[in-house]
């Protein structure tokens, strides 16, 4: 079947989205951007195609309520299969690094230690992907990395093997793994294995395993033809695309927001290192835009920096800030100065949630300034990008919009991180069909 793909190569993550002939979303994919955009583009595209296979599988099975249960179980088990396959690759890669002359004397001890670590991660893997399990990240690097760290520390203490050597080997190996792209064959195998695994302990599904297996095989046999691919985002120049396949992320975010919410007139996109205020007309055509320049304070990275300063995970910032009883005033628009202000406030006895609420407000104040420069907020307003997932940021934004522009419809989609990729895919569709 013909498909139209948009790939958004952001500074932090790379997103891909697949549309069908009727501009219906088939699948979405996301991965870390890494330093290699070619790989990031391929990985995210493969992930979006996996999403598409799930959608097609769902369509083929029909709307029986139990199908959702089957798909949720398939998703978990497929991810587990994927994780285990990457874990094998990681172990192989680590083993190869042991041949380095610097490890000549400790090779065997390190090999044993690594084996112990990997066996343990293998044992833990099903629990990581168990129903209801809470994962802080879906990226292999984050999941495997955090487990490798803590298990290596334990194993090195027990065996006397150098912890630094284990980490060094891991750091080198993970780069190799991140540069690998799963082939369609590998994905097909993992999906089929995942389906078998799902049926081992799954109740309440009206579809037999044999029927599901045949249906999935049919879906996997369907060729997803890449009819037209459009790339956008910071890494776009790294894509092996001809120039006409490249679109600016401003246009992609404008069109993507319009696709999700046709009434959109103003778009705010906060990405990893840039903030964009965009005005669009009734067709999703950009009429005006403004971006931050020279300074990325107030972007996603700002939050990452603050999380590091506070020794907490990025995803914890919003929830902690939501428990604030007041908003501490943070004056600085500079990330580093804000970090200093944060420590100063802490030393004065201010509460962490209150300071975090203040930091979220500081970010949004910067965004409001960019929106104002682009022409202000016109109904409807759509907030996109990774930061739109942060409830404290959204709360501050709502408040600031109300203060500055009155009551406005504010659209936020759970899939807002894919807005740029959706716009890109729409451009791909238009390139062929208009």
């Amino acid at each position, binding site marked *: 079947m013909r498909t139209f793909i948009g790939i958004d190569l952001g500074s932090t993550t790379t997103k891909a989205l697949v549309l069908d002939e009727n501009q219906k979303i088939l699948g979405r994919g996301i991965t870390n951007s890494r330093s290699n955009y070619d790989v990031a583009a391929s990985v995210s595209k493969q992930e979006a195609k996996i999403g598409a296979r799930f959608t097609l599988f769902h369509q083929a099975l029909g709307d029986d309520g139990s199908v959702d249960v089957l798909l949720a179980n398939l998703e978990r088990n497929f991810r587990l299969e994927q994780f285990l396959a990457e874990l094998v690759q990681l172990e192989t890669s680590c083993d190869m690094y042991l041949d380095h002359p610097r490890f000549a004397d400790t090779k065997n001890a390190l090999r044993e230690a690594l084996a112990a670590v990997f066996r343990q991660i293998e044992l833990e893997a099903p629990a990581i992907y168990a129903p209801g399990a809470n994962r802080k990240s879906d990226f292999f690097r984050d999941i495997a990395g955090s487990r490798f760290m803590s298990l290596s520390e334990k194993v090195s203490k027990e065996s006397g093997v150098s912890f630094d050597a284990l980490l060094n080997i891991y750091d080198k190996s993970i780069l190799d793994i991140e540069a690998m792209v799963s082939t369609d064959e590998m994905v097909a195998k993992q999906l089929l294995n995942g389906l078998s695994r799902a049926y081992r302990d799954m109740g309440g599904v009206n579809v037999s395993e044999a029927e599901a297996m045949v249906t999935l095989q049919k879906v996997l046999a369907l060729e997803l033809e890449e009819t037209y691919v459009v790339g956008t985002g910071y890494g776009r120049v790294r894509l092996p695309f001809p120039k006409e396949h490249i679109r*600016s992320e401003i246009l992609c975010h404008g069109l993507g927001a319009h696709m999700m919410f046709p009434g959109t007139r103003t778009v705010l996109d906060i990405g990893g290192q840039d903030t964009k205020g965009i005005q669009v*007309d009734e067709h999703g*055509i950009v009429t005006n835009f403004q*971006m931050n320049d020279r300074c990325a304070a107030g972007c996603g990275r700002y939050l990452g920096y603050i999380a590091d300063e506070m020794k907490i995970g990025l995803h914890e910032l919003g929830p902690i800030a939501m428990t604030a009883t007041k908003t501490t005033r943070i004056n600085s628009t500079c990330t580093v100065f804000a970090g200093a202000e944060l420590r100063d406030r802490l030393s004065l006895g201010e509460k962490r949630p209150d300071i975090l609420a203040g930091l979220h407000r500081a970010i949004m104040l910067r965004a409001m300034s960019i929106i104002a420069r682009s022409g202000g907020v016109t109904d409807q307003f759509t907030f996109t990008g990774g930061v739109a997932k942060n409830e404290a940021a959204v709360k501050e934004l709502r408040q600031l919009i109300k203060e500055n522009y009155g009551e406005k419809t504010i659209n936020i989609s759970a899939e807002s991180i894919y807005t740029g990729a959706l716009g890109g895919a729409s451009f791909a569709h238009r390139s062929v069909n208009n």
Partner: protein
Amino acid sequence: MSGAEVTKSNSQLIQKAMISRNYDRITSGECKVSSTFVPGNLNELLMCFDIANNLPEINAIQNAMRKKSGDMIQEAERSGHSEDVCTYVKADIGMMAKGNIAPNGKPFRDPDMLLLSYSGCFTFMKWFELLREQYKCPTVMLHVPYAADGQPTQNMRDYIVKQLKDEVIPTMEKVSGIKFDIDRLREYLRKSAQAENNLVWMLEQSKRRPSPIDCYFGGVYYMGPIFTAFRGTDEAIQYYDLLRLEIEERIAKGLCAQTLDGDMPEEKYRLVVEGPPNWTSFREFWQMFAEAGAVVVASSYTKVGGVYDYDGFRHDPDHPLESLADYCLGVYTNRNLPTRVDMLARNLKEYDADGLLINSIKSCNSFSAGQLVMLREIEKLTGKPGAFIETDLVDPRYFSAANVKNRLESYFQMIDQKRRAGGFITGNAAASA
């Protein structure tokens, strides 16, 4: 990218030789030297006293294009000048601290006088205060009132003429030992007007499709002689005659605008640009436009030294001092915002441009203040899309190529998108466009 051979026309080679001769004259020690500024400069008056014209802004630009300004600016910052100060000023201060070597490799002599003939930029005054402190030489601060109501008044004109008579000319006589001869000034002004006619002819050629010239990046070369030490000279007349011939030839051949890398193969976008260019990455900046097929058909920067094509100003030998006053009053940054808006909106319509691009300069409030308001107003008046980029004059730290390129690409694609959607006129905009 920047290492390739630059294509130069005869007029550019001649201009280069003119600039070089002027630097040789300034550094020769054989004549008196005045430091002055580009906007509203009184070159013809200086010529009446055989005083050489040295322009610190031009020195900063020359140093920026030679990749020397960054070190000079940091030198100035080490001596206590803030990060936010106009980078022309810091490049000049830094150049002095580093031995005050002119672009011809010879040391600048201390100026014999400082002549401020345009006070619409407050920084100019501060700059000359610093130089006065350094050189302890006679300093003339001609006060040019801001044309806040859009049109200079007779009172303003009289006020400037009075200052010329009472302050400026007597100081020049004292510095040079030469008595003022108004007929000599008339003769120079006659020559100025002759070159100015060709200059306006040239500016208006970009109304053609394709435009044979770029009126921003190319424009800074074409403006050079008229805005600096050559207005009123035979050299300038010859230069503009030659330039006219070159442009006529380009028109006859149907060529697109000339760039540093040869002729643009195709003209895809026609822009009006507001604000000065970036000098430290001048070539790279221009290439971003040229590679996209974007030509600048009109720009406010080509009016920074004086406005000739908006209300028909020419230097007038029959009213010499009044004409100098009108020239100072009429420079682009001395015009109020509604006038600037009108000027740019008219450019957009008359030159059939796709849109307005503003290059906002971090350290130049003379240009930057009010630019966003202007952008909105011009969009409303013309229905054509605007865009905003941010760079600096001569501080290489403030040219973020990736960011500028990103915005430019977005803007060009935005124009494409609008064209595909059936033109620029949307909503209630541009009913009269």
